[in-house]
């Protein structure tokens, strides 16, 4: 087969270089071995991480070679391009020859070829040539493939073949790779991946591109109506669910639950459940315990609402929800902040001083402490980069009060103090020794949902490649071009010698077994 190549007229050495399977093997080896690097060195992490892990020198070396994003490094892409060119050139080069084999002007059987075959099945049978011929031709036509009968010495030779076209299978395999690469290219050129975090009840119309601050507009609006996470009794999460509405020109056109494994697809964009976090709270119930009377009071409050405290304790406004609060070096976690205004009475002077001390030390760190949970984690096919990215993006959403001011005296007789009420430490506010100790009796979390937004106009092309790949492999591996030769020779009156042989372009053992079975059938045929 190799010698035929010069006939195709491509004597050009560059062309020759790209037709070689040696090149294929080398490129595949390089792809396989370099791919290992990216599984050993975490991809797309921060520079600080790499410097700390590998030191300055290796960092610089790796950076020059794009090792930190190696699957899109120029040299890796070059290998892929080399493979693609190799496939194209090789296929064009060989197709000509294969085509002639598959669609010859006239199918001719070469008896010599069969005579040379080592494995053959022979038996004697009591019958005459012509009756055997018609019997066998019928049978082989039905069970094997189209027959051609020729005159032989002292009898006839029946040839048959099947699966000539299966020689095309390998072209389908190679073509499928081109489809996948083309699809990937389309995705890289015209697609994007972005992330958006939508608090419950909020409407957005754009997302932030991954790895940058650029926003991309959807062309419509979407609202997160609610987010829910449910848990198994083992504590493992069972389901993450966002209820999303699409709004176009002010009209709600679609409302759908987005769960992991069931994204929302709309106008070429896909929205995948990727993370979630606490955005804020609702239905907050405050519990106040009076230090003077020992009485307890409960209030259900909304943000921004102001209540008059009992026992002439002043006024309290619930300002917001914070994700973290730093108190003397400890993060007290999620909590609520509010403003207390009360009138000055003599016995409070001492307390005020105390309060001033602790309040200056305290500061919130709402953004760093925010909890984001990525829902893809420990998944079967989890995507480190996607998840890592979304949690980083998730941090951009924050709410609640970020700064506390120390107590302010509005007038000599009125004080305004910002207080922090942690969720986890109900006795914390007692330390302030105010008129009332505040604690959180109950509240509901208000979540935000983190959605990954992708647009990939190349997916269909990749999928066509997938289908071709499977079909092509199936044809190449399990089907073959088989040829059969049955020779019937007279051996005295009403007796014949039968000699059966066959070839196949692959799986010779399978062919041998097939011939054995066929021979047994022919021998025992009912007449």
């Amino acid at each position, binding site marked *: 087969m190799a010698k035929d190549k010069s006939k195709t007229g491509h004597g050009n050495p560059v062309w020759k270089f790209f037709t070689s399977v040696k090149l294929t093997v080398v490129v*595949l080896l390089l792809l396989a071995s370099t*791919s290992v690097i990216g599984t050993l060195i975490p991809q797309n992490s921060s520079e600080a991480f790499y410097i700390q892990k590998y030191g300055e020198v290796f960092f610089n070396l790796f950076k020059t070679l794009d090792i930190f994003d190696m699957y899109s490094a120029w040299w890796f892409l070059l290998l892929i391009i080399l493979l693609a060119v190799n496939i194209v050139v090789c296929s064009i080069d060989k197709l000509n020859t294969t085509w002639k084999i598959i669609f010859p002007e006239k199918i001719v059987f070469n008896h010599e070829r069969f005579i040379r075959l080592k494995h053959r099945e022979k038996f004697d049978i009591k019958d005459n040539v012509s009756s055997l011929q018609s019997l066998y031709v019928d049978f082989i036509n039905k069970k094997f493939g189209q027959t051609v009968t020729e005159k032989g010495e002292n009898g006839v030779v029946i040839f048959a073949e099947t699966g000539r076209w299966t020689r095309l299978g390998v072209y389908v395999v190679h073509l499928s790779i081109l489809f996948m690469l083309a699809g990937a290219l389309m995705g890289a050129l015209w697609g994007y991946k972005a992330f958006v975090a939508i608090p419950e009840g909020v409407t957005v119309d754009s997302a932030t591109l991954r790895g940058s601050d650029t926003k991309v507009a959807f062309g419509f609006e979407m609202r997160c109506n609610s987010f829910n996470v449910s848990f198994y009794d083992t504590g493992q999460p069972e389901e993450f669910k966002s209820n999303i509405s699409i709004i176009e020109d002010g009209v709600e056109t679609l409302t759908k639950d987005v769960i992991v*494994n069931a994204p929302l697809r709309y106008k070429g964009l896909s929205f995948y459940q990727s993370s979630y976090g606490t955005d804020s709270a609702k239905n907050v119930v405050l519990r106040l315990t009076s230090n003077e009377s020992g009485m307890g009071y409960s209030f259900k409050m909304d943000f921004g609402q102001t209540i008059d405290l009992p026992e002439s304790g002043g006024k309290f406004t619930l300002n917001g929800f914070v994700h973290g609060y730093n108190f003397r070096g400890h993060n007290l976690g999620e909590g609520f902040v509010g403003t207390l205004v009360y009138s000055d009475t003599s016995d409070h002077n001492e307390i005020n001083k105390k309060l001033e001390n602790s309040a200056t030390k305290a500061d919130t760190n709402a953004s760093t402490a925010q909890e984001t949970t990525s829902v893809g984690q420990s998944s*079967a096919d989890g995507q480190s980069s*996607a998840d890592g990215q979304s949690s980083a993006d998730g941090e951009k959403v924050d709410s609640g009060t970020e700064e506390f001011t120390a107590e302010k005296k509005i007038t000599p007789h009125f004080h305004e103090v910002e207080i922090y009420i942690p969720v986890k430490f109900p006795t914390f506010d007692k330390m302030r020794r105010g008129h009332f100790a505040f604690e959180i009796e109950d509240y509901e979390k208000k979540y935000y949902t983190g959605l990954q937004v992708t647009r990939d106009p190349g997916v269909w092309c990749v999928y066509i490649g997938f289908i071709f790949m*499977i079909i092509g492999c199936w044809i190449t591996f399990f089907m073959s071009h088989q040829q059969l030769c049955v020779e019937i020779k007279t051996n005295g009156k009403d007796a014949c010698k039968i000699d059966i042989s066959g070839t196949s372009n692959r799986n010779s053992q399978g062919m041998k077994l097939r011939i054995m079975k066929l021979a047994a059938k022919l021998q025992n045929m009912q007449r």
Partner: protein
Amino acid sequence: MNSSMLLSITTFVYALASVLYIGAWTFKKDALAKIGLFTLVAGFTGNTLGIIFRWIESYQIGYGHAPFSNMYESLVFFSWTVAALYLFVEYKYRERIIGAFATPLVFLAIAYASLSPSIGSKITPLIPALKSNWLIAHVITCFLGYAGFAVAFGFSVMYLIKPEKTAPGTLMSKLPSLDIMDELIHQMVMFGFLFLTIGIITGSVWANSAWGTYWSWDPKETWSLITWFIYAILLHLRMMRGWHGRRISWVSIVGFLAVLFTYFGVNLLPGLHSYA
């Protein structure tokens, strides 16, 4: 009888089957291989029932998912696929002694699942990311692929230990002819390659439906691709460069090491694929 008990018994039945096959070869007693076949079929039946019971039990507990969701379940299924594939090969090629090189793999996988302290056999609920019908298609096809490569590995070892010339009546002469073994290795590699291909593709389609990217170069994905490349190299070397026998056996062994790494080793790397 619950599934764990059934699978424990299966482990011992498989052990017995391997011993019988190896015995048949070393003592040159074909009768032992026949008993080995029956034992293997018995083990395979137990294995099948074990998987079905486990499936039913998971519904009874209320988790309700196919038994392909963690290392234990995947190893049990791996044993099942290797056993199934081997039985098919023995049936089709009428060679018995080769069982000595395939059945130990069946036993080792399930024994590792049952005995390794780091592998829990408890039925656990499915995390949201795994709740997809693609899970079943993905796991079954991947493991059929791995099974093909495992059996190819067994046959490659067999090929390498057989000398070119064997005196009749010796241990080595009981092995099939080099031609047949070469063919068997090739058949198994093609089978494995097809199913690994489908496995990677179903995984990819699943990833796209769950996370919006069909390929993200996560270490497990990358390693399955590396494995795929190695076997693609093998196929080309064989088809176009005329490699056969010993050299192909070595490539197939390297390929199987890559399979093992994809299966076990990747858990040592940074990444999120939690199992299988």
